[in-house]
């Protein structure tokens, strides 16, 4: 594990477990009236968002603030791909301001990788979603949520349904869940599975109904309506019929199975309101867990003397 979090695939089983265990400890903070630890006092975390994502940004912001870090939100709307300040100049600016960690969301796959390896900045880089590549903290919060409901991920079956081709959430989940011992099955129409998916460390199916019976968790991915115009599927209604999760399909899941969604949901497209609001849906819980997991990531990246993900929680701070 390096001092950055760029890909879920960079995490060893020990790294991933340490993050989840740490998040468990930190989650208790969220239940206290005063939700704050002094751990990162004096450290600066920059949220560098080249893409609009209020949900992810406020989750990171809450995580950093609960650890007493100074938070700077840098919203470079549009994107650096358009004319304007380059990623490099933005990075040099942040470096000059003394950023200890940069949480970056960017529309270009690999932008966090470039930021981390260019020599432009010295701090840690956390990938908060890059293009159609990865979103490792989303995968961590998903794993955290599943672990809470399913005890352990080892040997569990997770079904991920939807636009895998364009989904950074799916890529990170496949890598992390595999590391944690779960079996992942991707479900999508063939048009929305990437070329080479047969080489991924998971199974895949074009038939949602055939995989319902054995699922411990079902994760529905957001499908953008504009994909229809690019002929990925014929119509919203046909997509919903074949790949949407409705009450009828939910009934065929095992009783203990949970329903997840990274949000924001298209109610009525990939998931019906009835399912989204059912007790089996843990979607709101995912949001809450996001803060704990991001606290754990920032804590482990920034508090260790070598800034590596190897630090241990100081007992008096979290053993509450």
């Amino acid at each position: 594990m390096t001092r950055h979090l760029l890909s879920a695939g960079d995490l060893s089983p020990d790294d991933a477990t340490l993050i989840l265990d740490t998040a468990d400890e930190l989650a208790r903070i969220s239940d206290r009236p005063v939700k704050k630890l002094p751990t990162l006092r004096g450290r600066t975390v920059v949220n560098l968002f080249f893409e609009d994502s209020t949900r992810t940004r406020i989750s990171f912001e809450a995580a950093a603030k609960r650890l007493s870090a100074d938070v700077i939100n840098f919203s470079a709307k549009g994107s650096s791909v358009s004319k304007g300040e380059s990623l490099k100049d933005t990075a040099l600016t942040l470096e000059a301001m003394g950023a200890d960690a940069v949480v970056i969301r960017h529309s270009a796959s690999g932008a966090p990788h470039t930021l981390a390896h260019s020599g432009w900045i010295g701090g840690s880089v956390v990938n908060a979603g890059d293009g159609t590549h990865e979103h490792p903290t989303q995968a961590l919060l998903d794993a955290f949520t599943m672990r809470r409901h399913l005890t352990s991920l080892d040997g569990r079956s997770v079904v991920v349904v939807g636009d895998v081709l364009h989904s950074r959430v799916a890529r990170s989940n496949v890598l992390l869940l595999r590391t944690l011992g779960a079996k992942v099955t991707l479900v999508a129409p063939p048009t929305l599975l990437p070329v080479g998916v047969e080489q991924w460390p998971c199974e895949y199916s074009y038939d949602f109904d055939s995989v319902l019976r054995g699922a411990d968790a079902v994760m529905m991915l957001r499908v953008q309506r504009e994909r229809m115009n690019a002929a990925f599927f014929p119509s919203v209604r046909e997509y919903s019929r074949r790949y949407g999760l409705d009450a009828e399909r939910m009934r065929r899941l095992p009783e203990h199975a949970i329903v997840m969604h990274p949000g924001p949901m298209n109610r009525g497209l990939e998931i019906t309101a009835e399912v989204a609001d059912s007790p089996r849906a843990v979607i709101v819980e995912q949001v809450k867990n996001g803060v704990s997991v991001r606290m754990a990531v920032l804590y482990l990246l920034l508090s260790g003397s070598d800034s590596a993900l190897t630090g241990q929680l100081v007992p008096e701070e979290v053993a509450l």
Partner: protein
Amino acid sequence: MSGGERQPRFLIKGASILGKEPADLLLSDGVIAEVGKSVSAAGAEEVDAFGLIALPGLVDLHTHLREPGREDAETVASGSAAAAVGGYTAVHAMANTEPVADTAGVVEQVWHLGRRTGLCDVYPVGAVTVGLAGQELAELGAMAESAAQVTVFSDDGHCVSDAVLMRRALEYVKAFDGVVAQHAQEPRLTEGAQMNEGPVSGVLGLGGWPAVAEESIIARDVLLAGHVGSRLHVCHVSTAGSVEILRWAKGKGIAVSAEVTPHHLLLTDEMVRTYDPRYKVNPPLRTQEDVDALRQGLADGVIDAIATDHAPHSLEDKDCEWEAAAMGMVGLETALAAAACAMIESELLDWAGLADRMSVRPAQIGRLTDQGRPLDAGEPANLVLIDPRARYVVDPTEFASRSRNSSFVGTEFRARPVATFLRGSLTAQDGKVC
């Protein structure tokens, strides 16, 4: 060019011609005056070439000199210098300049700039369509009849994707023995493409450029060329499937030629895992299977030529995230070394074979009569001396090119051009222009 001024005579001693027996070559009055075992000539400057290999000066069918328009990346002068250093005595300057080389005026400007620089022969390529827009034919005849005497026409960077327009262009250039050099890229299949479509693009989440987008255009174009009896050249072939289609077409007697770049003979899409924009190029780096097929196709002669697709870009166009970066890499100064690494060290070609693919056949495709000639007495004195055992690491800060975007930075190569002669004049020596 040296024109009327008196040039020193050179006596090259002991060069291994095409990698074979050592011989002496006397260069005088722009031609090879004498070739033999022990030539002597009073007053001639002697060049110790023992251990060096002599090949005819290299000819590039595919060079971007960027002038006019992007002189920050390259000029005709700096690109000519890079060519001379790389062992080239002739280059074809692609038409995607600003303004586009789609009129007699622009091609003559580039041609004159090349003449004035005089470090290698610069042959402008004319655009097939006005503004490279793929809508209407440029005045191909006017460019052919201009001082630049254009014979190669290409919208390189863009595909002539309209089948009717491609057919007409192929037919039209027959009137002046021209050739259409196609950038084979089906546009709809490559919208948003960032790299080769395959397992690596799936993992990296980068838009895919599928092999079929190249192969489908080549298949269509060889059928069109066969149908109308025209000459077709395929730029920068990059896939195993393209090699198979070309093999089939040549077997049918269709007048098609093809080129491959040094980078497609050495590098694969695995390099993209670094997200380092130096590896971003169009067509993209493919798989090892493609690399192997391209090498074999070149060895078999199915692919006729190695062409650099020298594509200089300013630092700011490469010092950024992958998706924002420009496509292309410089190649003139590393092409010979890379080609030797891919083809000679693997024993797929000998030096004579490499000379055929880097000089003789490109000259024939471009209808150049005084390039790519045998190193015999009476022939034009266009040649390069190569040290086949140099061992050096590529350092772009030493490039004569204005740009540094090489995919071979830090690579150790063996073969190195050490002296280049254009019509008897020494144009470059030991990595520096003369």
